[in-house]
């Protein structure tokens, strides 16, 4: 029996919350609250996803194989044993990349449609 590799495009588009979680996990393994803080820091400084939204999304991401539980934990005195740490799987990383490329394509389209300034103008070049 052949075990084929799933195509990341099959799970696109991602919701903003799910994409935010995948982005947060792109750099390092994190527990739930750290994910919330990371997502909030990338937006306007306050947590943009609540705990209920976060863990529902994590359940789905685990089921779909986009994230997995990590065994890398900090020293016991800095840790809360109730926490679980998560990391991106290879498939999750490819899905996040595919979603970023999809969004990049939308932004390019918005520039061509003059909904956004041209890239050189936006970057401050004459």
């Amino acid at each position: 029996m052949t075990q084929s590799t799933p195509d990341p495009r099959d799970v696109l588009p991602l919701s903003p919350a799910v994409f935010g979680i995948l982005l947060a996990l792109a750099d390092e393994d994190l527990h739930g609250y750290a994910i919330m803080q990371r997502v909030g820091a990338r937006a306007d400084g306050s947590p943009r996803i609540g705990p209920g939204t976060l863990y529902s999304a994590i359940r789905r991401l685990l089921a779909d194989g986009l994230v997995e539980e990590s065994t890398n934990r900090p020293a016991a005195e800095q840790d809360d044993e109730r926490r679980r740490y998560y990391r991106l799987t290879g498939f999750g990383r490819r899905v996040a990349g595919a979603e970023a490329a999809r969004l990049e394509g939308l932004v390019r389209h918005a520039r061509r449609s003059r909904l956004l300034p041209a890239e050189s103008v936006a970057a401050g070049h004459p």
Partner: protein
Amino acid sequence: MTGRRGGPADRLVRLYPRDFRTRHAAELSATLDDLRRDGRGRLRASVYADLLRGAAGEWLRLLLGARPATILSVLIAAPFLLVLTMFVLNYQPGFVAGLVGPDGTPSLLARVVMICWLLSLPLAVLINAWPRLTAARTTPSFVPSAPQLAIGLAAVALPAALMAGQVLRELRQLSDALGVAPLVGQVVGVLVLSLPSMALLLNRAPVLGVARLGPAQSATLAGANLIVGAALVMATTMLAGSFAAEVASCAIVGPSCD
């Protein structure tokens, strides 16, 4: 809003389904403690709202399966539930007249419907087996939850059992007319005995193989799997119901014992 440990927010966690709590309740509780610590002992109202919304969403997911296959299963079960309701209420709408001839025997249309029903069984097995036989790219991976399974079985099994006797009589008349009664009886017997175990293997093998699929692939094949499940349950229950109801003193297909 106060957010003490063991307070309203922690009670809201208990509203989540058990499978979710088993997996995430401890870490959700730790996260609430972190939020309280950073909020100087208080939780924002949006946290409570988010927990409530999350619990409702998880229950909805559990009850509905959150996949198009659920809608398909309802569509499969709906006609049988309709028949059951009509039977219970002793209600005979106009279109039933088209299914029953003047002498009370099933019309041609009714016979076609019943034979299609029986043919759906091997067809459903073929649909389910196709990806394995052809090493197709996608693999069935739908595993219903216990409540989904119970609701589905109940919805399909009861009407099927009620209609079992009638369908068996149809089979018997057909096989008598064709003069192949013993052969039909043996084929039906083998199918009844072997198909459920085949279906079980076909449905569980991907799980044992730890297949990982995206939602789009899973949803597509979940529909096929549900058709298989519904057809198998209908056929098995129908034949088992017949056996219990009237075949105890007769062969499955033999001389008429009406």
